[in-house]
């Protein structure tokens, strides 16, 4: 039998109540830590050029794919310890873990690196769990997951050699990388613990800086819990020339493969030159709620998805 809207909304109400608590505790956590909440535009003239993230167009502007560029423009002028929970939009992303419109939590701090952001996440997730009365062990999809820090860490190099049998630093194959990541590497992570996958090849650095002593490696970390990609952290790139070069490559790839025109975010590039040493992280709020609600699908934690809107 097909569930109607009333039945569906009654069924997921406990999850939506849990969601409201998680938002409340997240905001409280950052406030207590001296972070302040900021809001930046949802409709923007330029997004970060990324070949695999397709923005929705809106009267020649775009719907935000991430607040990152604005957060860094704030940091460049002297703001510190910022956080934001914003609506983000990415075309075509729909599945058990995706809705084209989703909630992103981002926070930034100066004088810190990507691993500090991982540590922040450990503390934040654990604090929320305890305020929800769950404790350090959650149960997700019939699996107990122990959230006690520090979370196990593995480099991209080691994880790929172990699970997929090849080295993505010597063989550059982004397509094979993505396929093996989702079909071999992530399924190979320990089920009962979070996993931090870190030190991506320079070609996948995106907006992260390269290791000063080892420039084939970027300071980027991704956090996985229960098979879900929860958050992505960078030590932020501060070299405006390098950032422009990376964006240019993405713009060329987008034009070549997808015949889309995308503008260089000039104002952001100007800000990058003034960026203090800093790090940031983006965390999928819907997925965090999924974990704490033991929800199989994003549809269980969102009142109206693209299919029920």
């Amino acid at each position, binding site marked *: 039998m097909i569930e109607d809207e009333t039945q569906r909304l009654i069924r997921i109400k406990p999850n939506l109540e849990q969601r409201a608590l998680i938002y409340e505790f997240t905001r409280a956590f950052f406030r207590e830590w001296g972070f302040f909440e900021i809001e930046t535009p949802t409709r923007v003239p330029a997004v970060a050029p990324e070949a*695999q*993230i397709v923005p929705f167009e809106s009267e020649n502007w775009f719907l935000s794919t991430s607040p990152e560029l604005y957060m860094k423009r704030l940091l460049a002028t002297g703001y510190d310890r910022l956080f934001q929970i914003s609506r983000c939009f990415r075309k075509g*992303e729909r*599945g058990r873990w995706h809705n084209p419109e989703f909630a992103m939590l981002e926070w930034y701090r100066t004088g810190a690196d990507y691993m500090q952001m991982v540590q922040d996440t450990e503390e934040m997730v654990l604090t929320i769990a305890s305020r929800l009365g769950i404790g350090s062990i959650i149960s997700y999809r019939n699996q107990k997951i122990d959230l006690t820090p520090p979370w196990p860490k593995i480099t991209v190099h080691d994880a790929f050699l172990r699970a997929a049998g090849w080295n993505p630093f010597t063989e550059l194959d982004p397509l094979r990388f993505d396929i093996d*990541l989702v079909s071999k590497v992530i399924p190979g992570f320990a089920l009962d613990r979070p996993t931090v996958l870190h030190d991506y090849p320079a070609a996948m650095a995106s907006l992260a800086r390269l290791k000063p002593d080892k420039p084939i490696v970027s300071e980027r970390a991704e956090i996985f819990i229960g098979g879900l990609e929860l958050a992505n952290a960078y030590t932020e790139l501060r070299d405006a020339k390098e950032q422009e070069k990376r964006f240019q490559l993405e713009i060329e790839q987008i034009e070549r493969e997808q015949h889309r025109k995308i503008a260089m975010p000039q104002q952001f590039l100007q800000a990058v030159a003034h960026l203090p040493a800093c790090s940031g992280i983006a965390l999928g709020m819907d997925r965090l709620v999924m974990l704490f609600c033991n929800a199989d699908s994003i549809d269980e934690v969102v009142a109206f998805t693209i299919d029920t809107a």
Partner: protein
Amino acid sequence: MDIGDVRKGSKLLINGIPYNIDEADFMKPGKGRAIYRLKLRNLLDDSTLDYTYHSGEKVEEAHISNYEMQYLYNDGEHYVFMNTENFEQLFLNEEKIGDKKYFLKEGALVTVMMMGEKPLGITIPTFVELKIAESATTTRTDTITTQTKSAVLETGYNIGVPPFVKEGDIIKIDTRTGTYVERVSTKK
């Protein structure tokens, strides 16, 4: 069509074979390509297959339609069906019908799956009622020792039936397994 537009229930044509998408898993590393893991069901023989696509790939959509049709008769060469909406007749050869021919009775309603103008196959009801054309009479000893005896349906199909079923009886058959379900009526 773009792989990104494929959903559960979409129909694709791959190497000339039409498939139904039974399951579509969308996976995407935040900064990486979208990966689509599909469970495909071959619409011709029902076999299943797993296939992985990635963003940007193009696939061919199969335009499949289903029509309700009535089986009219066999002209010796073809099975003749009539579309119940527009009354057009469709001639199918035995190969397209396969073993379902044993459960087709004149007048029966079936679903015919078409790809454009090309018929792919038919779906028959799960249960059909057919008459026993021949059945050995049961001796007293047979009744004690055997649970079933063999009989031949009006369509020529051999089937095991309980000993009390007689020639001329109408029985119900499960077409998924080709087995006897119950006796519907008996010849007076």
